[in-house]
Every structure is written in structure tokens, then in C-alpha cells.
């Protein structure tokens, strides 16, 4: 059996601060980039910590053999990872998990991202290009990231800020509702805080649109072996059980998730 997941120290070929405490890194890791899919994640080791940190893949460049990740400094682990300089080395394991299921390119998609849930949507949005609407929300103008990237990918961008300092004032769910009232996409994809995902899932159900959401949970192995990253899911018959974010997800059909 050929390996499909790799771990090693890879070079950070580009590192930029995108906003306060938000960094992007482009990492040269051809083996991983070759197999990576939109919505999958990599598991990053911060030198002083025991557990790896899961970070979604934001962009995949198979030709160059690079992955792009975007992450926010939330605690000590991400703070340490943020200290790796451009040209330095990062310990990654990936690609991991199940990504978003992409329909044929002619189909219409809405991608919804909130805050640091925006970056994982870029690769998916790019797949649909002009047929994608990206509804992306941030706390305020200073926290806005990747807007141009979504535009370059050809998507229609619907930018929201909680405080109205940029784009539409309000939550992405309101913007989504407005969109859905006008047109019915083939699929909705979402990543962001639990309460946002719950709202998106409810709207998708209301308007009868298939919806996939990307979940987060604290992780150990990242590969499905330790069963710590449990999230409650339900079968069509309503029976609930624990699935695992790293193996069965991070992307789930919204209707399977017990919010």
C-alpha cells in the first residue's frame, strides 16, 4: 500500500502577516500537496508542545508542490508556530481528513466563512470560480483577510463585518439568507464558529439546499486512531453516535451533525 499521509519538516517558502495575529505560510511539501484536497487539514507540531495543531489547507499548488495555510494565534501553540520565519522549517503531517465534496464545475456554490473559518473555503471557492459566491464575515475591517484572493478566483464576494466597518454590517447568515431568497445554489459549504454553522445549516435546510460544514474539535493523532476528536452525528433514522472530526470529517454533511 502506497503511503497517502506524510510527516516531515518542510520549508516555509513564504510567510506573511495578513492581519493582527493572522499569518499565512506557503510551505514546500510536494508529497502532501500532490494528494491534498480542498477542506483537508495538516497537523502542525509546535516545537515545545506535545500535541500537534490542526490547520486547514487554504490553497493547494500541485505544480509548485506547495500548500498555503492561514492561521490565527489563539494560544501558546499557534504563537510558537507563528515564530517560524520565512525560510525556516515546519513539522507537518498531512493531508488529513475528508475534504469538501466538489461537484462538477458548472454547478453553483455558495461558500460561507466566518473569521478564521474563511481560509479553508478558498480552494473550494476557486473550484467553482465564477459560479461561486463567497460570503465572508469578520469582526471588523481590520480583521478582513483574503478578500482579493476570492476575487482573483473569480467568485462574487459578499463581505460582512460585525461592526459594519467594511462591507455589509451584520452576520454572514443574514447575507446568506438574502442570497437564498434570490437564487438557489446546488450546494453550500461553510466553515466558522459553531453558532454560525448551525445558522447556515438551518438556512440550508429551510431552502432545501445541500450543505457541508467543516467542524473543529481538539485532536490527538489526527488520523483516526485515538478517537479523541469526537463529535455527535446522527444517521438518517435519527440515531446519534460519536463520529471523529479527523477521520469522518472535518467536513460533514450538515444534516448529519448534531449541533
Amino acid at each position, binding site marked *: *500500500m502506497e*503511503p*497517502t*499521509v*506524510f*510527516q516531515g519538516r518542510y520549508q516555509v517558502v513564504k510567510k506573511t502577516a495578513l492581519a493582527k495575529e493572522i499569518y499565512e505560510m506557503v510551505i514546500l511539501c510536494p508529497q502532501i500537496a500532490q494528494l491534498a484536497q480542498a477542506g483537508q487539514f495538516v497537523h502542525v*507540531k509546535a516545537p515545545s*508542545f*506535545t*500535541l*500537534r495543531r490542526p490547520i486547514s489547507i487554504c490553497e493547494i499548488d500541485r505544480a509548485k508542490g506547495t500548500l498555503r495555510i492561514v492561521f490565527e494565534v489563539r494560544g501558546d*501553540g499557534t504563537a510558537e508556530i507563528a515564530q517560524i520565519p520565512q525560510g525556516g522549517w515546519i513539522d507537518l*503531517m498531512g493531508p488529513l481528513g475528508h475534504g469538501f465534496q466538489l461537484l462538477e464545475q458548472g454547478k453553483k456554490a455558495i461558500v460561507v466563512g466566518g473569521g478564521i473559518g474563511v481560509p479553508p473555503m478558498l480552494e473550494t471557492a476557486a473550484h467553482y470560480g465564477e459560479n461561486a459566491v463567497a460570503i465572508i464575515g469578520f469582526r471588523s475591517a481590520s480583521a478582513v483577510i483574503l478578500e482579493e484572493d476570492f476575487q482573483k478566483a473569480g467568485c462574487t464576494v459578499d463581505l460582512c463585518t460585525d461592526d459594519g466597518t467594511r462591507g455589509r454590517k451584520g452576520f454572514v447568515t443574514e447575507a446568506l439568507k438574502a442570497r437564498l431568497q434570490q437564487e438557489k445554489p446546488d450546494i453550500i459549504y461553510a466553515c466558522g464558529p459553531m453558532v454560525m454553522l448551525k445558522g447556515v445549516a438551518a438556512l440550508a435546510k429551510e431552502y432545501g439546499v445541500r450543505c457541508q460544514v467543516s467542524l473543529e*474539535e*481538539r*485532536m*490527538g*493523532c*489526527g*488520523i*483516526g*486512531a*485515538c*478517537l*479523541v*476528536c*469526537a*463529535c*455527535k452525528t446522527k444517521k438518517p433514522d435519527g440515531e446519534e*453516535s*460519536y463520529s471523529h472530526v479527523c*477521520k469522518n470529517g472535518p467536513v460533514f454533511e450538515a444534516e448529519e451533525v448534531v449541533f
Partner: protein
Amino acid sequence: MAKLSVELCGVEFKNPVIAASGCFGFGREYEKMYPVSVFGGISLKGMTYEERQGNPPPRIAETPSGMLNSVGLQNPGVEAFLAHELPQIVGKDTVLIANAAGSTVEDYCALVERLSDSAVDMIELNISCPNVKHGGAAFGVSCEGAASVVRAVRRVCKKPLIVKLSPNVTDIASIAEAVEAEGADAISLINTLLGMRIDIKSRRPILRNNVGGMSGPAVFPIAVRMVWQVANRVKVPVIGLGGIEKWQDAIEMMMAGASAIQIGAALFYDPYAPIKIVEGMNSWLDRQGVKDVREIVGTVQPW
């Protein structure tokens, strides 16, 4: 090229490195990275007779050089294991150890009886899981409790029986003696140490189960001490685990008295650890001119 193979209770392991239960699923996940045959054996995810959902998340918390888990024995139950999991992992050139848990002596017996007719090579009795309310650890923390479950299980067990001990006890060597007296063929230790972390922002325990089992490098010195104490008191082989991450640790654990070792938490941050450990051991043995890894077992010379 030193001889790395070891024999435990009549079962041959090509090397003394075993995946620890609960850290290697049912042996298939890490096949995305390397074949299971890199391990001398694998101890499968802890199993109960009936399916169990385990504890609510979060189930993991980080600690200095370690981690806490509160999985709580999530598993599909023995029938689903036999039907769907075991067939996928037999014949892959590694010793299969079923890790068996229960809430009552009857549970344990029913499970072990069922496993005794299967293709697993050995059974590891988990009387030490700190993450389930009833049974489990309760048996493991007293000589009588441990003895009673081993006595009952021994009668129905047709496979070599390893008993896995809890470190959350005052006198682990006496418990080891008690289970040896009841017919344990081998003893493995340590399971996790009960710990707790609190999120000071929310003033809530990080684990939804409040407490969880600590493992990883932090516990290594405790594991070495306990293996040393136990190996000096029992005649059956001892399998040492708890915090092993490097080949040096594996050697140290074997010198303390372990005939084989298991790796758990280290897999999460260093997935190739088993490969590095086997290679590292091998070249160390060569450098030392030791021809057979078994020669180092229990060779620590106390002062």
C-alpha cells in the same frame, strides 16, 4: 544486525515494539503512513462486549510533556469487531493483541470467551482504564479486585493472557503478584495516571469528563520505576510502557525489566516513532556488540 525478536508466552514478536492500546485504533489508520508490520505487535483499541459510545468531547487536553485523554472506551463491541475489523487486520505480519475491558466480571468473561475463539494472538486485560465510571479501574486498584477478575477470566481464556495494570495505586508490585498468582501469563504497565486540567477562562475542566488519563513523556520516570518494581517481584514477562518516545527510552525500559515495550502518545506527535525506535535499538545493540535484544532485559544494576 542484532536479533530483535522476542517471545512472550509462546508468541513470537519480530521486534519488541508494540503499539499501545487506544493509540493505534484497530491497526488500519496508520496504514496510510506505513505498514503495521513495522511493529512486533499491536494492542488494539480497548474493547467491551457491547458497543460503547465513550465520553462526550473534549476528550483530550495538553499537559507539560504529556496529555490527558478521556475517550472512555468508545468501541463498536466485540461482534462488530470480529465481523468488520479483525478480518481487515489478520495476516499482516504483526502479533494481534485484543485489549479487553468490562464493567463486571461477567462482562469480562463473556468478552474474553468470545475473543478466545478468534484470530487474535493474545488478550490484554484492561483492568485499569481510569475513564469509565464502573468497573475498569476499580478492579485494577486493589489486589482482591484485580485477582477476582483475572481468576474468572483465566478459566475462559484460551489465549495467552496479559494483564494491564493501573499506576494509580499505592503498591503496584503487590497487585502484579496477585494477578500472576491467578494465572496471568504476562503483565503490562502502565496505563494512564489520573489527572485534571482546568481552563481558567471558563473555570471549567478542559475535559468534559472532568478528569482523564495522563500519558506521554511526562510519565516515563514513573513507568520505569513501576516496571522495575514489578519485574523484580514476578516471574512472568513484563511489557513496559508509559511515555516511551525514543529508542533510548525503549532500551531504558527494557533494562528496567521489560521484555517488550509499547508506544502510545508518542505516535501522535511522531508517527514514525516505531520505525525510528526499532532502527535505533538495532544500531545501538550493534554498537554495543549485543547480539540479542533479550540480553539487555532487566540488566539495570541497582546501587
